[in-house]
């Protein structure tokens, strides 16, 4: 809907130094205050336009990242509305977490081009640009009419319709029961009703849980390769990526910065970063690389920790192991072709996914591939199953799920069915929005697809 507060990541997704999350709309500052705490303790609500504030972004009271919040006051902003921009550390994981926190606190995900559209509607753009927008809508709708649904989308709408149809049936019964009290409409059975709603809510929650897993297939996994210097990280990376990108030498500390590569392992896209070997560095430049590596380790979705089979675990290894707790981690015991001296038990304490291989000789790679597939959850992932494809779908499914939770708690609390029906219908309308059956501006705005998000 118009005038809802929207948010999106407005820098390119990737490993840039800074990621910007833009929030625009009436409640932009209010929402920003919910997730951002200024170091000085002051509220952004009290801040003037064109001011920048240093502080931290929190997710459920947990610090996500340090961040600079820039406040723009309407009409002096890109969109002409109140705008807050969070500049935090770059990287897919952090920016996405910040965005999700913002969304969970009342903003809705901005559609492609929506900031631009608002800018236009608020008189911030000229007519030429307006004409361009019109063209895009025209082009988009005819293109959309022609384009076939992807396998995933088809399965998704089947799944959503299955849930929706069940809910619509229940709601229709409730309505008939209320509208025709004297016409022999079967009584509403509490147990059957609550069970049906619960069943639907499980289905939605499955979809929501699968979102991250599905995302792995669509968007790829942010992966970092770590290990102390010279255990063979770069060799491994080259093996995975199939080319020589990292500078491979025998001198420890050769890789001084983060090297990025995209590779496909068993249909799963890995966004690989090779890092400087983690060790107590004495070289200043190398130290920067090491610090970065440590940070990346925390933000990555998948960590590939490389160890040298031919040596005992050293202090740097142990230090690394201590940082791996809580991460999705595959331990690669490299150089298995050499004498095996490593203490494998210590590694087992940290991860179940241990692969022995020799990157140099390309042995053990299929074990590695299996491990990636397993940890990405895709070994059980049927590519034709229903998947929520993007943040918009996720947030609608989440709203539908929450409305159902409300319906369930209303029933459990003993509320009358008229209140239950309202929650139920709300859930249905979110699902309709998801499948594009309801006219709301949220769906409408999707036609602005061709504009890059955030501009």
């Amino acid at each position: 809907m118009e005038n809802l507060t929207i948010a999106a990541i407005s820098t390119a997704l990737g490993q840039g130094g800074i990621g910007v999350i833009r929030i625009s709309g009436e409640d932009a500052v209010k929402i920003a205050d919910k997730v951002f705490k200024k170091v000085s303790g002051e509220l952004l609500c009290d801040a003037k336009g064109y001011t920048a504030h240093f502080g931290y972004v929190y997710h459920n009271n947990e610090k996500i990242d340090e961040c600079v919040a820039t406040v723009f006051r309407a009409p002096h902003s890109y969109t002409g509305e109140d705008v807050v921009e969070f500049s935090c550390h770059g990287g897919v994981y952090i920016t996405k977490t910040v965005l999700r926190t913002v969304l969970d606190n009342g903003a809705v995900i901005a559609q492609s081009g929506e900031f631009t559209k608002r800018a236009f509607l608020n008189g911030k753009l000229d007519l030429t640009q307006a004409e361009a927008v019109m063209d895009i809508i025209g082009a988009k709708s005819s293109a959309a009419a022609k384009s076939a649904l992807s396998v995933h989308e088809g399965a998704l709408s089947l799944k959503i319709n299955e849930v929706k149809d069940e809910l619509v049936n229940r709601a229709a019964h409730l309505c008939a029961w209320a509208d025709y009290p004297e016409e022999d409409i079967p009584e509403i059975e509490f147990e059957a009703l609550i069970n049906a709603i619960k069943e639907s809510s499980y289905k939605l929650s499955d979809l929501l849980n699968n979102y991250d897993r599905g995302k792995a297939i669509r968007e790829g996994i942010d992966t970092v390769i770590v290990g102390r210097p010279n255990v063979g990280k770069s060799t491994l990376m080259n093996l995975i990526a199939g080319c020589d990108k990292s500078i491979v030498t025998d001198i420890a500390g050769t890789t001084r910065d983060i090297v990025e590569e995209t590779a496909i392992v068993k249909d799963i896209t890995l966004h690989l970063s090779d890092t400087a070997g983690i060790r107590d560095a004495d070289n200043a430049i190398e130290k920067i690389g090491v610090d970065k590596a440590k940070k990346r380790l925390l933000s990555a979705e998948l960590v590939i920790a490389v160890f040298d089979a031919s040596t005992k675990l050293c202090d740097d290894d142990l230090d690394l192991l201590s940082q791996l707790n809580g991460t999705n981690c595959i331990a690669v015991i490299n150089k298995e072709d050499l004498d095996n001296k490593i203490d494998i038990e210590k590694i087992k304490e940290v991860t179940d996914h241990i692969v022995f291989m020799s990157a140099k000789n390309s042995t053990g790679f299929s074990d590695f591939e299996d491990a990636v597939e397993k940890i990405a959850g895709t070994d059980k992932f049927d590519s034709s199953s229903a998947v929520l494809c993007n943040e918009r779908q996720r947030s609608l499914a989440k709203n539908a799920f929450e409305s159902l939770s409300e319906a369930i708690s209303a029933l459990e609390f003993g509320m009358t069915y008229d209140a239950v029906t309202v929650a139920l219908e709300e859930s249905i309308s979110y699902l309709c929005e998801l499948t594009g059956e309801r006219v709301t501006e949220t769906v409408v705005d999707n036609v602005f697809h061709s504009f890059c998000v955030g501009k």
Partner: protein
Amino acid sequence: MSIYFAGNYDVAVIGAGHAGIEAALAAARLGCKTAIFTINMDAVGNCPCNPSIGGTAKGHLVREIDALGGEMGKTADECFLQMRMLNLGKGPAVHSLRAQIDRRKYQDVMKHKLELTDNLDMRQAEITDIEQNNDGTWTLTTRMLAQFVAKTVIIATGTYLGGKIFIGEVSYESGPDGVFPATFLGESLRKLGIPTRRFKTGTPARVKRSTIDLDSLEVQEGDVPPVPFSYDTESLGENKVVCHISYTNENTKKIILDNIHRSPLYGGKIEGVGPRYCPSLEDKIVRFEHKERHQLFIEPCGLDTEEMYLQGMSSSLPEEVQIQFYHTIPGLENALIMRPAYAIEYDCIDPTTMNATLEFRDFSGLYGAGQFNGSSGYEEAAAQGLIAGINAAHKVMGKDEFVLDRASSYIGTLIDDLITKGANEPYRMMTSRSEYRLILRQDNADERLTPIGYELGLISKERWARFNEKQRLIKEEMKRVKHTTIPSSEKLNEILVSRETSPVEGGIRLFELLKRPQLNYKVLQEVDILRPDLPDAIFEQVEIAIKYEGYIKKQLAQVEQMRKLEVKTLPADVDYKTLSGLRLEAQEKLNRIRPANIGQASRISGVSPADISVLLIWLAKRSQEKTTTEVE
């Protein structure tokens, strides 16, 4: 015979059924010189179908009409025989009041009120022709060739317009209850350029009370005490009658199926579209083949008549088949049928050609209301009549259009549905038609609409004062409930446990207790010792506001969103064919339905989200250009 000039009016109302009555009363009360025409002075305010007013969602409409200063609720109260609040226990949003009424008395009372109203002339005449004059006024010609000139005209012809009755193989031109139909006006409208179409409805037989074995039947009592419709009615006295319930059986079904080919509907004689929501018995039996029995209610038509109405048993089968199947029903074995059931087909128009004021878009000063607009039901008709009457008067007086939106009322929802979605069958109001039903309750119609009625000038000063006093008391009681703590006591916990809700340690706010669905004002009386002596209506408002607070808030937020789109007005003169980017279907629909704003446009089927986006951009662009031109 020669044409003669018979008089000038501000507002002329054609038809004196439920729509025409409210229209004429509103216009006259707002100060317009008004005429109401009826084919038969004895048919004013007739209830040719069920002898009852209200029912699910319709009860909401009656309360809303009353809150705005209409007459239906008051008259129903005066003529009530039995009152029932339907859906008790299903939640306040779907509570609906229904009155069994004395049908003849209702007509008499209504007619007398019309007669006593200043500025209002009642005239028995069939209008055969209407024409618009060059100055925008309308000339109405009667069958006797009298000509009236009116600034505005409201057509509320009900089932009279081209009315045709069907009973089995027999059919003849007729209005309801054997009154003759309006035969010429339909042609006049078509000549004017207003296409008409055929709808159908029906009514069951009336049977003689003393020939029904009522003692063998289940009794349906009224509420004690009965609750009135009108906020003006102080008390009703006692219920005067009971209703009875019986059921059809396999024999009924067999007789109907054996003779189904003789039904004009199934035999293909009726071209009109009937309501799915109010099917004939043969419809029910054919469509729900496996249902063993169908319920019927036996309702008295009045205190001074032996005629009984068989609710749920309408039919258009031949008379002798009717006799056979009615006699299969327990209690009706020997029933004497005084009037047979019949189906009636009539002319109506496509309401998507109207504005929300119920004025035809292409005919300034011409309005329609009720079944003429494609609705069904007395209450739906009255609601439209009231709105059309107010708007016709406003037009005459040069005042603003009066429109109620969906979030304000069932009346607004009804009209919005009619003008944006149209009617493929006679439109009946239902609670499920309103997306805002937790706030559009029958119990708060006064709070929602009486301030509007007062502003319009249809609510008296005395009633306005009473209304304000009620609102004050509600606020005060709410404050008390929020600030009152009920100390913990054995008595309190006894009540809580007996209602299957958790006992408390220490004191608890009254407010918190009332939040619990298991508790209410009544059960807490004993522990709420400082409770002031207030009318139940006050407690009801406070309790609902507390119990449903979260839901109400949510709905109010939805309303807020909706209203943002309603204020984005679309110009009346745009040719949507010239808007590039709109899909062809949308161009055609928008050109035909001509929504007044983006909200309405978004509810038209066939107008897609992408089309709405195009409209928004176009609107924004247009207003920018306008501003630029103004600056220049």
